[in-house]
């Protein structure tokens, strides 16, 4: 009884919203799917208003194809594919010659597993707008997934005739050829894909397995190493119609996503604006506040960090990223006891948090609490043996306290892992050995780091290592 009542109460606003919306519906038009009913009560207010406004505009002119398309796009932007499809279908009936509608409908259908619908609509796009290359790529992907290998092959080949330098088209064609047992054709296309986009992770992976199958273990290993460096890296999709959906998403999550992209592109000020926008949409967004703390920290804006730290801890006192970032800032300011208090908050919620233990260990070292530091480093490694920072710091601490055998074990392990950070760690381990008086070993490691930096095109690091080597040679 109590449970039923609770659900009635929870569901009530939604039911009211549905009732309010459906109350406005016009009698059904036999040619058109009905305008979808929507429950928007859970959305943040600005998003809710955006959806309701688009729907209200549509209800004013239900046979207006652009208005149907617009509501469809907004719903699609929030991943509400099913109602979006209904709006697109209406727009498609009302304006059959519009390739944008056909394309977005096809995409939404593919996302919901309606392969037949997706195939029909994406084919329509190719008829309506043969130059819109993404349609060929998407249609090829659907056909491949549904086992229509020959048709998929033709599409990808057509696409390559249209865009010979499309790394995606080469990679997708390679997948089809592999499925058709044309291993050499697949290898050729994946090779071209990685020529066009050097860090194309999945293409490197496919090449690694193809060479493995061919018995060429050296090439297989080489491509697997490249995959390991950037496993998730893929070329950007140039798809203006899909990008237009992203622009419609005004949720806090979308703003945070944009901010991360901007940061990755080296545009921190623009990222700040995006994050502040996220807070406007959703003032309680822990993610947005935490990202702001991180960003203000990078920009050396202590006031910004303080402001958002206060905001986020009012929502969630033990927020992980916020406390880690804030504690790090305090440590940089030399306030090690305060920093430790922030890290302890993380452990209050997550006792096994490896990064928090590492940072606590560092703070403890600064506070001359070596035993505590060692304990935290060990706990960090116990929970995550791949925590290289903890391994390095523990190795260094052990070296400093003359426990060289164990220190070496930890440092060797840190040095062994191969990924894009390996060069940096080799450099740091070299420093540890130099501090311990093992100059020869330090130079060997630095040499290794230099080779690695050169191989991976890490120019800045390469210069830095070369300078260090010169300096060490001069001062040895």
């Amino acid at each position: 009884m109590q449970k039923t009542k609770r659900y009635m109460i929870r569901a009530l606003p939604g039911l009211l919203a549905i009732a309010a919306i459906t109350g406005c519906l016009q009698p059904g038009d036999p040619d058109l799917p009905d305008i979808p009913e929507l429950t928007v009560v859970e959305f943040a207010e600005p998003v809710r208003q955006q959806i309701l406004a688009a729907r209200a505009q549509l209800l004013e002119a239900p046979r207006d194809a652009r208005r149907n398309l617009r509501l469809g796009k907004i719903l699609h932007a929030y991943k509400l594919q099913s109602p979006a499809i209904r709006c697109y279908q209406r727009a498609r009936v009302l304006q059959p010659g519009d390739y944008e509608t056909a394309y977005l409908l096809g995409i939404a259908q593919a996302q919901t597993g309606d392969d037949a619908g997706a195939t029909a609509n994406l084919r329509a796009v190719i008829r309506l707008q043969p130059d819109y290359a993404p349609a060929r790529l998407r249609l090829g992907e659907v056909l491949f997934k549904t086992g229509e290998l020959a048709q998929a092959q033709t599409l990808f080949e057509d696409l390559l005739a249209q865009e010979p330098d499309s790394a995606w088209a080469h990679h997708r064609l390679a997948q089809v050829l592999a499925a058709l047992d044309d291993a050499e054709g697949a290898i050729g296309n994946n090779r071209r894909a990685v020529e066009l986009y050097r860090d194309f992770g999945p293409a490197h992976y496919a090449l690694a397995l193809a060479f493995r199958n061919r018995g060429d273990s050296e090439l297989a290993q080489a491509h697997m190493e490249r995959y390991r460096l950037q496993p998730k890296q893929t070329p950007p999709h140039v798809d203006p119609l899909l990008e237009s959906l992203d622009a419609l998403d005004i949720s806090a999550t979308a703003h945070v996503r944009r901010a991360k992209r901007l940061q990755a592109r080296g545009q921190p000020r623009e990222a700040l604006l995006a994050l502040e926008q996220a807070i406007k949409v959703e003032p309680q967004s822990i993610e947005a506040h935490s990202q702001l703390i991180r960003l203000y920290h990078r920009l050396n804006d202590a006031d910004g960090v303080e402001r958002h730290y206060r905001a986020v801890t009012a929502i969630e006192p033990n927020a992980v990223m916020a406390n880690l970032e804030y504690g790090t800032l305090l440590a940089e300011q030399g306030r090690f006891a305060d920093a430790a208090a922030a890290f302890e908050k993380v452990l209050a919620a997550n006792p096994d948090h490896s990064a928090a233990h590492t940072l606590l260990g560092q703070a403890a070292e600064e506070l001359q609490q070596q035993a505590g530091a060692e304990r935290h480093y060990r706990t960090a490694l116990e929970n995550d043996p791949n925590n290289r920072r903890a391994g390095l710091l523990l190795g260094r601490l052990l070296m400093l306290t003359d426990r060289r055998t164990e220190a070496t074990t930890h440092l060797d392990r840190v040095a062994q892992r191969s990924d894009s950070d390996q060069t940096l760690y080799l450099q740091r381990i070299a420093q540890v050995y130099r501090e311990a008086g093992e100059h020869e070993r330090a130079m060997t490691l630095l040499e290794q780091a230099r080779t690695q930096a050169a191989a991976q095109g890490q120019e800045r690091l390469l210069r830095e290592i070369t300078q260090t080597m010169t300096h060490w040679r001069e001062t040895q």
Partner: protein
Amino acid sequence: MKAILIRRGWALSAVVIVLLAGCEGDKATQSVPAPQPGEPFVEVAAASGLVFTHFNGASGAYYQPEVFGPGVALLDYDRDGDLDVYLPQAGMPDPGQSPAQALFPLPAGQPTGDRLFRNELQADGMLRFTDVTDLAGLGHAGYAQGVATGDYDNDGYTDFYVTAFGTNVLYHNQGDGRFIDVTSAAGVDDPRWSTSAAFLDYDRDGDLDLFVANYVHFTVAGNKQCAGGDGTLDYCGPQSYRPVRDRLFRNDGDGRFTDVSDAAGLGVAFGPGLGVTCADYNGDGWQDIYVANDGDDNQLWINQGNGRFENTALMAGVAINAYGKAEASMGVTAGDFDGDGDEDLFMTHLDRETNTLYVNDGTGNFLDATDAHKLGRISLQYTGFGAEWLDFDNDSDLDLFVANGAVRIEESLRGQPFPYQERNQLIRNDGRDGFSDMTEQSGPALALVEVSRGAAFGDLDNDGDIDIVVANNNGPARLLRNTIDGDNHWLTVRLQGTRSNRAGLGARVALLRAGKPPLWRRTHTDGSYLSASDDRVHFGLGAGTDVQAIGVVWPQGTREIWHDIGIDSFITLQEGSGKDWDGNP
């Protein structure tokens, strides 16, 4: 040398004797639904007395463990010849909350805690279960997730290990119908969030070691609020928390285990582990371990034969799918579906991902052959958990059963109290034509729409075909009794190790037939999801009656063969009682 042959009639007689000896318990009061022609399974849980509803403790806070259990185990704990059922139960994830705060209360009259149901198989083959939890000294009251079974002390009685969000428990079977908690003494506790576990003899010393897959560092205090696109609260994915490393415990042979995770090299790679299955994937005679991780690279730990393992998953082609993508792997099962003598892997994933089939080339290298075998499209709309290769129709090839249930709100169910229900799937092996989903034609038992998680497989009514127990989250356990009726023959083999572990877990069993390739099966209880299955090996024989012999490759590496094998029967093969086997009939 003849096999120890236990004919079907004998097995049933043994059951009858036990029943006459005075078993107590509730009598099933509901009638068993009659199967319709062509429907392979009928659901008989309540009718047979297997009455258990999972309680997930959901209170509206969306604590992640709420949607991950439960599993189920089938084990003959009392050695009366039939499979009993153990069902792990959850509680409140937040110990500060009382069950009264749960959105979905436990049904009136159902005791809290895990339950053990004794199978009191009737002379007419009907199933009847009695809850013997209290008699057996069981009733673990933590937040249980799954179960692994194995006779770790080789005393002939199956023990089991319960994984939990919190403290895990190892129960030792005393042999008198009772179990005792030996976790502390054995040193196999893991306070982290453990999911699937498996007993295996990785060091070939004749006793079973224990591998425990762990999931993520979730804590109630660190609970995150995750929402769908519309802002509705929903359960977080694994990316919201950091993964927890897995554990390998070596059996020291004296009732104690040693944590050898680091020494074995397992610390270097781990993810949010949900499924595990152990087999000799590269054919070198040593048991390897495959771990299915949720949204992260899977691991294939190849046993180096010196106490160490090496993760070869990436180059072996089983870390990520053919598209270079790590999938949300949940359940996993290994079996020789293509009859080429090696273990192929099938694993279940999130909706909008496909379930994935990795075909072994015999050397431990695999090829993602999901689409080629038509297993991709049929799984796109489901979130799969428990799964197993099983020959449900005794036609001699391995089919699939997949237990499904969402972890994110199903759009079509939005607004319902627990909107995660999906239908399970029965998938038939059509040989060269790939696989086909025959759920639609399989009647009401396969039409149930629930939040299924674990599934365990075994011949509960000892009638020569495989039945299934499905463990549902926030719902009743289901027993799908196999009602396939036809002319297909079968053979069920129980192994009895003497130098190897008692149940022969990890042994490879070949059924040799004139003019046909051998059928290879593996003795195992692991795989699926959070669950443990029948440790007997089942062969469907189709119309064939031409069984030449049974060959066994024991975990210790020795090979033996037995001739004069009867069909449509249960046989027990004791290690050392066969002839040396050179691989030929």
